[in-house]
């Protein structure tokens, strides 16, 4: 939605239709997002967390990493959301890339509400490999689709 478009419903008749045309005419040929918006994650303030994998769920609509993160004596359990198996496979992931007990470091976008959930940006595996959150057209910061969500259909 273009800036100022939230004022348009007050306009009537022909001008309203012109405004609507203007708002939507430039977004052709762009695939829709897959499952949901990522606006609940704070992608502008990524954080780094390190810990031990307690589960790796190779599932749809998303793959999840469950991670125990120790800060001194306190352990916080984090859930990390990834893309789907289809998207991740094209970015070098496999169903057995991670296993319980692996130690990893992940750059993630945390939930805005402060809960210990997040969206993966990239992860460094125990063997030093670095994987993103999907292929060139995957999801997540750094691998987002070429068109902003506001222009997606």
């Amino acid at each position, binding site marked *: *939605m273009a800036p100022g*478009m939230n004022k*348009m*419903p007050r306009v009537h*008749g022909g001008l*309203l*239709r012109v*405004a*609507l*045309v203007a*708002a*939507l*005419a*430039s*977004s*052709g*040929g*762009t*695939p*829709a*997002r*897959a*499952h*949901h*918006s*990522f*606006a*609940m994650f*704070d992608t502008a303030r990524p954080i780094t967390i390190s810990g031990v994998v307690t*589960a790796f*769920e190779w*599932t*749809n*609509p*998303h793959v*999840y990493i*469950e991670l125990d993160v120790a800060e001194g004596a306190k352990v916080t*359990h984090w*859930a990390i*959301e990834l893309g*789907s*198996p*289809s*998207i991740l*496979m*094209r970015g070098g992931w496999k169903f057995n890339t991670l296993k319980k007990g692996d130690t990893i470091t992940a750059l993630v976008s945390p*939930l*805005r*509400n402060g*809960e210990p*959930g997040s969206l993966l940006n990239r992860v460094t595996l125990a063997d030093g490999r670095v994987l993103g959150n999907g292929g060139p*057209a*995957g*999801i997540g910061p750094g691998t987002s*689709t*070429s*068109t902003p*969500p*506001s222009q997606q*259909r």
Partner: protein
Amino acid sequence: MICALAPDVVGQTTPRPSVAGVWVPFGAGRGADPAVAPPPAGPVALKPAYAKEYLAQRAADAEATKRGEPPPSAAMGCVPYGMPRMMAIASYPVEILETPGQITIITEAFSEVRRVFMDQPQLPMDEVPPGYYGHSVGRWQGDSLVVDTVGIKESVPGYQNTPHSDRMRITERLRLITPDVLHDQITIDDPVVLEKPIVYTLAYRRMPDYKMVEFVCDNNREYVDERGRVRMRLGR
């Protein structure tokens, strides 16, 4: 790509293109080759009675997303997209199979399936049970596969989340732009909701040797809380 010889008239065969294969959608944005990129979409012109509510909802959704509280959607609940949106979901591939009398379109996202019955007359709209994929008939017209679809139920979100009625008709023209680039020009006509038909084109690249991946939505952690906000379920 010309790879089929189909009998048109008794004793004759005509080379016919084939759209069979696995295809991945791509947009008109960053790095797109202008020679094969989809042309800009045509305008969306809703009738005033629908435009007002649609614009208000669109503005409200944008504001909510800006606050970090994206509005829920059917797909977020793992409900399939249906037609026409299912034809391009992020970078999920689409497989097209050609068999005698039928073309089958399978999308990887949500494992949606469309069946296009070839060279048959379309059913009257009132005889098609409303559904996600409706009733599709197809025919070759020159180098284009023309597919006519009716019977999409009104609760299936339309193009750009626009509303539609049970009178909506979707006409697709699938054509190979190069042997490895496919365009699907989609025309949505709905005399109840639209001032004029919406026309847009989806573009796909061939994915040689790609094996489609299963997609069963059995671990959906997104949910809508009591305040209508999308949340991520934790604590597993």
